[in-house]
């Protein structure tokens, strides 16, 4: 981590806005998938709800829970970019996002440049390794949800 950092890189106005007014923060009673995630070290908690159609395309995404501004903004942004994606695309976005916030090797672009551009507002996290877990919490929970379809009638 560099010594002198501009805090504005981390807390961009758009991030603060998502943190204050998160999109799609609600419970979803008719979801097809859900999972619960937490960062025990900081007490962040999130539940991610997904609704997929017959073709496996994500039609609705929501999250609920209490967390820091970074985790909340990241979850909020995630709900916006996942609409209309297949689960393969969602996993690909997770990989890209992970690379973005850790400064790791970026996977090949596969036609989701607009989404990636939106997510780039969280790239400041890479200078704050401790916050990486905050930024990725909702995403890892989303992956767990994809692998955890709700039993019919449950």
């Amino acid at each position, binding site marked *: 981590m560099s*010594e*002198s*950092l501009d*805090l504005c890189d*981390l*807390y961009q106005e758009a991030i*603060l806005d998502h*943190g*204050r007014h998160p999109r799609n923060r609600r419970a979803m009673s008719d979801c097809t998938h859900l999972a619960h995630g937490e960062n025990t*070290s*900081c*007490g*962040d*908690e999130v539940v991610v709800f997904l609704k997929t159609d017959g073709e496996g395309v994500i039609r609705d995404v929501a999250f609920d829970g*209490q*967390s*820091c*501004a*970074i*985790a909340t903004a990241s979850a909020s942004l995630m709900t916006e970019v996942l609409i209309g994606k297949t689960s393969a695309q969602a996993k690909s976005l997770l990989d890209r996002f992970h690379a973005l916030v850790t400064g790791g090797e970026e996977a090949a672009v596969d036609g989701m440049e607009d989404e990636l551009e939106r997510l780039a507002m969280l790239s400041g996290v890479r200078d*704050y390794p401790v*916050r990486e877990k*905050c930024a990725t919490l909702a995403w890892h929970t989303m992956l767990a949800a994809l692998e955890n379809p709700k039993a019919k009638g449950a």
Partner: protein
Amino acid sequence: MNTAPGALQFRDVEKRVPNDNALVVGEGDGALFTDGLLSGATPYDVEAVRADFPILHRPVRGRPLVYLDTAASAQKPAQVIEAERSFYAEDYANIHRGLYFLSQRATQRYDEARRKVKSFLNARHEHEIIFTRSATEAINLVAASFGEAFLKEGDEVLITGLEHHSNIVPWQMLREKKGIVLKVAPLNDTGEVPLEDFTKLLGPRTRLAAFAQVSNALGTVLPVAQLTRVAHAAGAKVLIDGAQSIVHMGTDVQALDCDFLVFSGHKLYGPTGIGVLYGKEALLDAMPPYQGGGDMIANVTFEKTTFAPLPTKFEAGTPAIAQAVALGAAIDYLTELGIERIVAHEASLLDYASRRLSAIKSLAILGTAAEKASVISFIMHGVHPHDIAQVLDSRGVAVRAGHHCAQPVMARFGVPATVRASFGLYNTTAEVDALAEALERVERLFVR
């Protein structure tokens, strides 16, 4: 270090500490209390003290470091750093086994460190001081060894609601192993442990009461002398976790009459890797060894081993020799500066910081006990503690955000985490101002 000519001797100092224990310490010596406790402490020149701490002059994020995490670990004065360096450079060899000069010299230095700890705690005997790796290891030692010798299924250990995980988990592990019962004296809304609630939980099966003297998460000072008396009256032994308190007040184990007391070196402006278990001689003698190995034996054959006497019975293997020596240097430093003056300095910082932070509208302080050490835990409505700590860090202000290894305390107050600012002997009111100004920036950024 700026040493006032009239710096008090330690025995004198500890009798003036204004807490519950001091009243006990002063018994039969009441004259010491009639002259106004803290008002008698000559303030020290904090800038001169700061000059002793090299790290405080290191800029962080392009600004002067404002270190407000002393409750997690204290920074080290040059005297401690130099003690460890010069020990390695001039006196180092393994202890206890060499007939040669350096080994004898190193052994003397190690023994001398034990004597310093003994005086610092006013223990009756040097061999009642066991060097461990940490306060945590010292508690684990008691849980394993005292637990092995004295606790049976159905016996009870009483702790309190404000314990650090290190004074919870070892007892839970013992519960798994031996079927003991763990009881917890509850916290009230100010973060205190009411004596009557504690007393109610003592019973004929209570074998041990184990509690912190100061809460690391809230700063509450527990009335440990009273708690010890009622626990003893119920026939229980007492372990005091002094990890937080030892640095904020004088500690006299004979006056407290506790059976065990633990602390760590790094919170006492000393090095990491060294901790202390004080135990009453008769108890330590009756307890089996904690670990087996070198140094802790009198004689070994493949048929039978006899154990060394105290304290080496509990110090298997090569100990943290240089760290013990440097801990001795930290004790010298504090004693020379004067515990009474440190107590007064920290009390005034706590008072100033409490007032300054209370003026911030969205901020709420958790833990408002009548008796507190210089620790302030707080939350800000609508802002996560990690975001607060992040903004503070950008201003060079180092605080802790999280559960402070005291998740049950967080649960009691219904929060996942808090921000904790803790003050040490080197902090200044200007640093409190820097904290308050940074918090005002947090408010501007996040609270709308």
